[in-house]
């Protein structure tokens, strides 16, 4: 939610499956005690893999199949991975609430064919003229679906907080 996001990200692929819902990313029951993402990050993806949170390194990139972030609209499902140091999520497709929550919090949602990417691969996400993902280990470059201009502006502002601070509201209709 702070500074402008970089154009180029490098990180290690952390591969997940299809239909990873927001309850799996961070379970609702954990929110009874706190909504502080710095505490909740120790429970990231615990339902799928209790050891996952401890294995996350800052800069890791989540790589999923179809319909990432389905289920609830709860925004901790974005702020918790961000607090864990994750700055991009690659998926074949996203649930719409997750996609917009990601943009609003400066987490880059990259919609692309993720089938070639393997756990631990070194990835380079490039937000240039095109949105591309380079998988160094597999030797492939994947062209992702471009981000609509309006969403790109929010992302480039660093998220919706700095965007609204700068503009006082929504500026554009495109």
């Amino acid at each position, binding site marked *: *939610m702070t500074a402008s996001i970089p154009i180029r990200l490098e990180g290690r692929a952390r591969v997940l499956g299809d*239909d990873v*819902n927001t*309850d*799996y990313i961070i*379970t*609702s*029951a954990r*929110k*009874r*005690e*706190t*909504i502080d993402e710095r505490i909740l990050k120790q429970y990231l993806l615990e*339902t799928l893999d209790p050891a996952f949170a401890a294995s996350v390194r800052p800069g890791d990139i989540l790589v999923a199949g*179809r*319909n990432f972030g*389905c*289920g*609830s*609209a*709860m*925004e*901790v499902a*974005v*702020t918790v991975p961000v607090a864990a140091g994750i700055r991009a999520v690659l998926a074949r*497709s996203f*649930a*719409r*609430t997750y996609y*917009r*929550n990601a943009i*609003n*919090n400066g987490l880059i949602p990259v919609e692309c064919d993720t089938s070639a990417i393997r756990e631990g691969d070194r990835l380079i996400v490039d937000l240039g003229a095109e949105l591309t993902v380079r998988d160094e280990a597999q030797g492939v470059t994947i062209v992702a679906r471009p981000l*609509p*201009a*309006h*969403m790109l502006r929010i992302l480039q502002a660093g*998220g*919706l*907080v700095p965007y*609204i*601070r700068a503009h*006082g*509201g*929504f500026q*554009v*209709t*495109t």
Partner: protein
Amino acid sequence: MAEKILSARSGVDARAGDVVVCEVDYALGTDAATPMAIDYFEAMGGTRVRQPERFAFSLDHYAPPSSAKSAALHDRVRAFARAHGIHLWEVGEGIGLQLMVESGRCRPGGLVIGADSHSTMFGACNAFGTGIGSSDLAAAMISGQVWLRVPETTKVWLDGALRPGVAAKDMILSLVGRLGQDGANYQALEFLGPGAASLSIDERLVLSNMSVEMGAKAGIFLADHATRAYLSTRVVEPLTPVEPDPDARYAREIVVDLSALEPQIARPHEPDNVVSLHETSGTRVDMVFIGTCTGGRVRDFHEVLAQVEDGGGIAPGLLLVLTPASREVHFELLRDGTLATLTALGAVVTTPGCGACCGTAGMIPGDGMTVVSTANRNFKARMGNATASIYLASPAACGAAAATGMLTGPRVRV
């Protein structure tokens, strides 16, 4: 219908694929999303809420609070509501989504958003209802606006009428099973046809509500006689419904014959893991949960009562947990004796609200328990215990399970 509502609210000719900035008619913040929205509001430099009368907050997911920390989150929401003149539904008043509908905020042709994914439910009243996150709610409080990508529309044409023993829940489970959890991703669903017209508002709410289980952005019905009758005591202003143009373009058309449907069930741990109820017949059940924004309205409890009475009571050792969706529902069930009868038979009645649905309030199932519920999601750990197995079914099928202690087809009264 989605294009029409979003065009009217954005002031531009909005077409599928466009990103538009829209004026919001009403917006809901639940206790699960509003504390974070307040953080975002402050971080965005917000000082006052533009048009506070368009917002409402509900204390429902953590109702009643089971820890000092969730009580503190409630206090934060209360204080913000008081400071900014925003309507607050207190603990015990019910589920915010249901209260948005009951209070007449979900109106034909309106744009009604909620910081809750099941806000698609508002489409039952011909509104464009969709879920947003906390940051979007904060931005809406500051600007009165929300950005939306105009969705493509899938037409769901409903023929025929539901047979006795088959519910709206069976119809939507069948569709979720058929299309899958992303089968309508980013799309608006329009429920049309004689079958749609045959459904009551409460039944339409079930279909619109669970549209999000296929990834849909909205699930919209036409406004008709039933809509007007439902809203007649709730809205004083003239209604401004929308309907599709005769030459409306659809991304896809799906036809469902309601009269051909049979009872359905979603097995653990995904809502699209749907089979005919009879395929699971005989599965032992430990707990039955009746409630939520999908299955906690008056008729749902009547269906349960009928099954339990016809089946000779509640099966020994089975936990039957009842959570009315709202105080209005609770009152009606008190007045007509439904809750007295079910309580005498051994059911537990809990505070109106989200209850046991997502493990935030109400009864958390024990290790290894099998639960069947009228809710909308059965993800692993959804109810607060990862070792529980959750099935989703109609109120009648849940009532039959409560009576017999196992999954079985509901009895049909003749």
